[in-house]
């Protein structure tokens, strides 16, 4: 015995309906566009008061392969890898030149400023300068193998001191001191800095180190308006980015146009700003 023809037809229709309903399901969105773009004149200075950022993640670029062919002649492609357990840190190595890249997860937006200068009254173009401050905690477990691989024998206090020294001498330009303040020259505002570095014994001849990571993305370039879309063309010749925006009194909201990242800062989807008096 089988289903009656009418039941079979109903089932088939139900199947088709299910797929159509399924096609109506929408993906989860962690940073929804919580307002309607309305445009306005952005000229002036603005302070970031709130933001939404997706938990952006990308596997660290292996320094091993930078500027080098990954595939060697007559060799199979290397398998994908994660990252270096020791974060490429050269502790105790003479002539340490490697950049300090302590691991951290996605940093939260801590603040920032945006300044828009118009080309003239009524003009829909101009120049802008933006500083987006991000910060967050980080930690790394430096194993006994990491601590001794370069021939040094270090205590955790010495490791903390060495990391602090490495962090202090990291300069975006030779001879250019930076303190990671948004008010600094632009050259200082586009790199990671580390502070509050502390290391404790992990009980296995290694060190558990914690620190605070800060990243101040300082950007500038040209802006233009098309309807309710604000375009930012970065002076560093990166591709322009677009944001939907709405100015309401002394409040401005920016939403990445078509869910793109604002000012090309990975994962930053929305910014709420207040006009700076």
């Amino acid at each position: 015995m089988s289903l009656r023809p009418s039941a079979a037809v109903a089932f088939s229709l139900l199947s088709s309906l299910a797929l159509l309903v399924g096609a109506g399901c929408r993906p989860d969105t962690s940073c929804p566009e919580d307002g309607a773009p309305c445009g306005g004149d952005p000229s002036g200075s603005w302070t970031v008061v709130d933001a939404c950022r997706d938990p952006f993640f990308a596997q660290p670029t292996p320094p091993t392969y930078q500027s080098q062919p990954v595939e060697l002649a007559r060799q199979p492609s290397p398998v994908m890898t994660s990252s270096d357990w020791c974060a490429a840190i050269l502790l105790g190595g003479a002539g340490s030149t490697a950049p300090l890249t302590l691991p951290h997860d996605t940093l939260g937006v801590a603040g920032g400023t945006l300044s828009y200068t118009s080309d003239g009254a009524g003009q829909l173009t101009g120049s802008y300068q933006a500083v987006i401050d991000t910060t967050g905690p980080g930690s790394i477990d430096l194993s006994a193998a990491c601590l001794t691989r370069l021939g040094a024998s270090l205590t955790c206090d010495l490791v903390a001191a060495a990391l602090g020294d490495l962090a202090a001498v990291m300069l975006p330009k030779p001879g250019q001191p930076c303190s990671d303040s948004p008010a600094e020259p632009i050259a200082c505002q586009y790199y990671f800095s580390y502070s509050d570095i502390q290391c404790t014994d992990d009980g296995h001849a290694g060190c558990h180190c914690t620190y605070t990571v800060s990243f101040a993305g300082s950007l500038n370039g040209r802006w233009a308006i098309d309807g309710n879309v604000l375009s930012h063309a970065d002076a560093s010749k990166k591709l322009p980015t677009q944001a939907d925006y709405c100015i309401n009194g002394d409040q401005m909201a920016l939403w990445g146009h078509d869910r793109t990242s604002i000012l090309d800062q990975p994962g930053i989807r929305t910014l709420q700003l207040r006009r700076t008096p």
Partner: protein
Amino acid sequence: MNKARLLTLACAAALLGAGPARGQAPTPPAPGAADSGWRSSLYGFAELDGMHDTTQSYGPASNNAMLARPGTYAAAHARSQFTVDNSQLGLRVAAPDYGRLRTSGQVEVDFFGVQPTDATEQTAFTTPSIRLRLFYVKLETPVVDVLAGQYHELFGWGGAGFYMNSVAFLGVAGEIYHRNPQVRVSRTLGGPRVRLDLAVAAVRPVQRDSEVPDIEGGIRLLWNGWRGASAQGFAAPDLLPLAIGVSGVWRRFAVAEFLTNPGDAKVAYGWGLAGNVFLPIVPARSAGNKGNALSVTAEASMGTGISDLYTGLTGGALFPLLPDPSGGLVPPPLYRPNIDSGIVTYDANGNLQTIDWRAVVVGLSYYLPIQDGRVWLSATYSLLRSANISSLTPEASRGGVFIQQDYVDGNLFGTVTPAVQVGLSYQMTHQTFGDLPFGGQNHPESRNHRAEAAVRFFF
């Protein structure tokens, strides 16, 4: 016997190379002869699956693949797919009994074969590759049964009636589902009401360079007096007895040292334990009337270094990157592991470590008391977790692994004709990643919702 049948028998004979041992009598008739006593059956099904996902994480099969992370393009956009890759073709062959020896074999293929790396989307879906599923010979003797060839894993009692009933392609998330070349010896004890199966198998080593085959063993108890309705995956339902199974796996790893030019291998051992149950809560009246039958299928598993036994599972685990103290050695220092990724890895001190997994999967199926049970519902829930995948991944890469996966599905099945079955399914997969963004205590999470419809024509 028609022409097709003769051709089938000829193929079967060629595939299995059947024949008596030297010096033994009587000599069985040549296969293919009209009265040879060989039996064969060609079987299979044509299947179409259509599925819509709310993310672009999955191909046609979801299994235990990684979901796109929140905030990525793939996580924010949907996908629809139609595929016939799950269609199958098989051949069962039984040789004439030879004294008290009974010989049979099976060949089964589907179309989930490996695609060339330059395959386009169109060619991948319209000209799929054949994949060997089963290919074995089984010799039944009065003492033990011997199976040699590729078959379901004994670990988890694969192919023995413990698979979940779902439109989703098996294995569903968290379910042990794998096939491997093996030699299995089994022994059945008991009578027609209660049966005890004992089995041990030497299985293809998970890593050929380990030198030692995986060892699997299992014990299964069946009570034929209590039979319920069960369907394996999207297969046609059948009557199966109440069954409880326990199984285990042991394996050795000998992985090249974590150096550019390795010396000795680093050795580690993996193991797994699994418990399975098929419990007919409301037994089926008969094969022809399953109305009101209610059954539970469950599996609990745990182990280390066994991710390959869960379909498509790596959790995102990779080997670490070799350090490059100068930041630019030429040629770059490369580590070439001699084992698939996701099973073992090296920790921060260069010790070989196995990756732990534990899972529980529970399925429920209910045959509606209409049309003699030819319309039925099923639901599956699973939880899969690793306790050490995050700690065995360098800090900077923990966003690339998932530490937990939850899965739930609901299915509606119907038998349109005895040869045609349709199914509808909703499936939700939720994964929790290993990093802690924004300095908080909450791990990022991703979800995928899938609507799937399938139709299958059995032949």
